[in-house]
């Protein structure tokens, strides 16, 4: 059963996203960090539960897509819905890259070598 559900040809993308074709939120990217909130799971579909199960620690949407074999655009839509219902939190508001991020990356890279 679970093997069948993993086959992208068996479960079309619009079924996985309950018919949604684009994320309900703007500003989500493949590197948006999310984390599961402590909320009851009832009422959630299988796809949403699978996502929540791997979000106990901070994780980005691209990692979720890869670990669950979901197309990245599907992962964006499912995560967006779970942020809307409060099942997922995002630790920092989505931000456009600014100079402070560039400085942090630069300092971090320099510290490695």
């Amino acid at each position, binding site marked *: 059963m*679970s093997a069948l559900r993993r086959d992208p040809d068996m479960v079309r993308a619009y079924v996985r996203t309950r018919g949604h074709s684009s994320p309900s939120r703007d500003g989500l990217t493949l590197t948006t960090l999310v984390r599961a909130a402590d909320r009851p799971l009832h009422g959630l579909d299988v796809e949403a539960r699978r996502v929540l199960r*791997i979000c106990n620690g901070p994780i980005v949407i691209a990692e979720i897509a890869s670990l669950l074999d979901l197309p990245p655009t599907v992962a964006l839509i499912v995560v967006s819905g779970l942020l809307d219902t409060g099942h997922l939190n995002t630790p920092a508001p989505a931000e456009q890259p600014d100079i402070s991020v560039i400085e942090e990356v630069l300092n971090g890279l320099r510290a490695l070598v």
Partner: protein
Amino acid sequence: MDSVLSSEHQYLPTTVTRSAKILIAGHFGAGKTTLVGSVSEIKPLRTEEPITEASTGIDDLAGLPSKTETTVAFDFGRRTLSPRLALYLFGTPGQNRFTPFWEHLFHGALGALVLVDTRRLQDSDAVLALFEERGLPFGVAVNEWDGAQRFDLDEVRRALALDDDVVVTSCDARDEVSSIHALIAFVEYLHRSSRLECLS
């Protein structure tokens, strides 16, 4: 099955609250996946996005418009740079054709480091054009394999018709420290550019 996956996955430290993304681009065989693997602290992960395209083929027996399914695959890696910041490196797909999915790769990226193999310099033109068109900051790193002919970086700059301010550096994508130095050169360039923007 999912629980197996999640227990195998090396999670970020719980203190991490910020992420940054740099694209690693280049023509086929330039060494993108190698560089991502050299710098990543986890085994690089892969995702695939199905792309449906209208097909104009005439071999459709039903006489109905047919669609072909292809996928855009990309690999990415991760390096935790401080207790609160993780850097993600996305190897961008080899094909240069623009698809809507590229928006997801571009969105939120600091910039793109374009790897170049000097034996196939002309193959880089389409990749560079893509970033120029999109206005995403980019730099060039010449991937110097053992035995490959060494080029003067100014020669490479001229051959690729790059502006004087675009950073051109070199690295051995197989080597972690060398790859990190190339990233440092690129991020220093991004830093200089954004400071200039702040001043202007």
